[in-house]
């Protein structure tokens, strides 16, 4: 298996999903060797964890990597020496983002592919399973060397992440998906997107819904939030185009024009945060629509406990793990139809991401009838319990068997 992130070194949902998928497969008896760019903690027992960096330094031949080959922009050229010093600095600063998605991403992708080639030539395995575009080159390289079938797992595609697709990323994605023997998607929604954008036939695609780590088996106690004076409506996630924060703000504007005892909070940060702060100021709603900045896990939990409602307004959400996080803290939600999660949790009120009137209407219903929110969570809980990584592992194993022809 080829992964880009693995806990505890993660920047988002991809690392969490990769961990869950590997564990679910291990529960089905699948033996996994997982290659990640780098790793510093101990490997969990259910798999064999390898770091590309360590692998390369061990087997490094006299022939250095020619980075000019794969740098799309000459100006971002960085010598391995410069890279090392940058890397050490980033490491010292303790920022996992700097480590995983630095300015030399394409260099990292190529290095990772080289490590994958190396490991594929020295190990015996039945199937190659890679996660998102950063690992697709590595997957193709491993397939070339070993001849084993390639499974490409799509957590998101470039068209989901940005309205201005990076052409280099799109090209890598396209090649990876074309060369794959099986394309696994995290939702039907994503499968349709892959078909539309890359023309991949449905015959070689499949859906494997992500699981969720339920910490408690009981249905979460739907507490009345500590905040009593104003009802608090939450957005959380990266403040980027993909997550539709502008639709959250438009929904807030509509709701505030009808009622004033509401507070809207955006937790998170991203490239749209500053323009949106200015927009809120222009609307003169800065005292009602608040920006909390980036929060750690403890702060986010405290914020959730004090919230009455979560709105997920994503423009394109392949799965939507955040909704589950909110629900498990007892916060009801209204979600975008353009998401994978809306396929599974069909009883949650949903709207097209652009339909802010509908969002506002559903939000008012939930705010005005706390019982409705409680009911939402109580009804969803059994459904949530069915969504497990074990089930995800079972599904993926059956796809493996199909690809291997037995």
């Amino acid at each position, binding site marked *: 298996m080829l992964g880009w992130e693995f806990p505890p070194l993660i920047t988002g949902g991809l690392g969490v999903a990769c961990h869950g998928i590997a564990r679910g497969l291990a529960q089905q008896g699948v033996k996994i060797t997982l290659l990640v760019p780098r790793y510093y903690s101990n490997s969990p027992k259910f798999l064999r964890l390898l770091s590309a960096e360590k692998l390369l330094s061990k087997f490094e031949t006299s022939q250095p990597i020619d980075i000019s080959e794969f740098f799309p922009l000459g100006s971002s050229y960085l010598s391995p020496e410069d890279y090392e010093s940058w890397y050490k600095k980033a490491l010292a600063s303790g920022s996992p983002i700097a480590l995983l998605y630095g300015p030399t991403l394409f260099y990292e992708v190529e290095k990772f592919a080289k490590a994958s080639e190396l490991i594929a030539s020295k190990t015996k395995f039945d199937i190659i399973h890679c996660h998102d575009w950063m690992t697709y080159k590595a997957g193709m390289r491993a397939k070339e060397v070993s001849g084993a079938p390639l499974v490409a797992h799509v957590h998101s595609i470039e068209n989901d992440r940005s309205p201005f697709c990076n052409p280099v990323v799109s090209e890598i994605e396209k090649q990876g998906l074309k060369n794959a023997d099986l394309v696994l998607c995290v939702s039907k929604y994503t499968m349709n997107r892959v078909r539309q954008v890359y023309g991949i036939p449905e015959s070689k695609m499949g859906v494997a819904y992500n699981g969720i780590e339920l910490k408690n088996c009981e249905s979460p106690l739907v507490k009345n939030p500590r905040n009593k004076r104003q009802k608090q409506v939450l957005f959380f996630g990266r403040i980027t185009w993909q997550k539709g924060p502008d639709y959250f703000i438009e929904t807030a504007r509509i709701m505030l024009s009808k009622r004033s005892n509401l507070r809207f909070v955006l937790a998170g940060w991203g490239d749209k945060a500053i323009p949106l702060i*200015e927009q809120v100021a222009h609307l*003169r709603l800065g005292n009602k629509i608040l920006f909390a900045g980036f929060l750690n896990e403890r702060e986010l939990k405290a914020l959730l406990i*004090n919230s009455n409602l979560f709105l997920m307004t994503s423009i394109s959400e392949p799965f939507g793990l955040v909704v589950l996080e909110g629900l498990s803290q007892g916060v009801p939600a209204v979600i975008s139809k353009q998401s994978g999660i809306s396929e599974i949790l069909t009883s949650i009120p949903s709207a097209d991401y652009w339909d802010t009137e509908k969002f506002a209407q559903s939000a008012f219903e939930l705010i005005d009838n706390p019982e409705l929110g409680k009911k939402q969570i109580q009804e969803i809980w059994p459904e949530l319990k069915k969504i497990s990584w074990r089930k995800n592992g079972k599904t993926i194993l059956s796809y493996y068997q199909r690809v291997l022809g037995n």
Partner: protein
Amino acid sequence: MDIENNHSYFDDEQNRAIIKKVAEKCYLPANQTIYQLIQETQGRFRVAYSISGVALEQLERFYPAVIDSFQRLAQTGAVEFLAETYYHSLAIIFSPGEFCEQVNKHLETLNRLFGLRPTTFRNTELAYHDYLAQQIEQMGFKAVLAEGVDWLVGENGSGKLYKASGTKNVKVLLRHYRLSDDIAFRFSSSKWQEYPLYADKWAKWVRATPGPLVNIFIDYETFGEHHWDTSGIFAFLKYLPQVLLSSPEIEILTPGEIANKYEPMAEFAPPHWISWADTERDLSAWLGNDMQRDAMERLYQLESRVKASQDAGLIEDWRKLTTSDHFYYMSTKHAGDAEVHNYFNPHQSPHFAYATFMRILNDLEARLSPS
């Protein structure tokens, strides 16, 4: 982000540390130097201080020795204390009622600490319009300070004493910003062609300036904080009285004394609000973008409800939010002025400053609602 549960908005520890640093680098040594100069010149060297109520409050709390040394200065009779808004606010723009209350609170503080009743007013950051002069005339003030803006009075216009338009007889003293900024901004700049600036050179410029007035008004932190001791700023200050007073035609007076002694030579009527800030010399340093306007408007919108609550702690918190610096931190101006804005900014960026301020405002508003 703990709205409705945590109402502690101000960072006492940081305030204490800053007061200590500035007291030791500037207030104490500068007060000592000025006290000696007054003694040495038998009171011919004279100064005026404009110290906000919040500054006095923090000095009393965190460094009372500074208050003692101001009291000693007050007793010399060569020092005038000016009135301003207690909270260093721009309340006059948004709420004349609140403005009066803040000025009265400042007057009470000056009376308590120094036993004085000022007759000269200086508004926050020299923000000025006819309306201000009319308001303070009703409150009994005789004179007011403003910026000597070139486009309004010409290059040498700050040498005259003015009458404020629309008042019976409020006298306006205009800051000579070039000679003031020579000391306040350019003194330690080695790129400046006049660097290094010695007291006799600067005194020569003063003599060459058409008067009769040369009004110098600068940040007190010029001495020891903006320019460190090693820049020679204290030596400059020490020699200044003797080189100025060696010319018989030069007399040093405080603003109140000037207003008593001279009659106005012209009328001062700026067409809009002016101030001493940034190159624009208007209110754009505090109200230049939507974030600043939203924050200010939303703040003053709460005034009547805050006061109706009769909750002293809540009213005090609200008033501390009127301090103009909060809005200054939200400025998004670029180039030269941004350097000045950023130097004083405790926030990561103007957008963080705004986001933080609005979270506090939201919490304050929530305290007004019944739970």
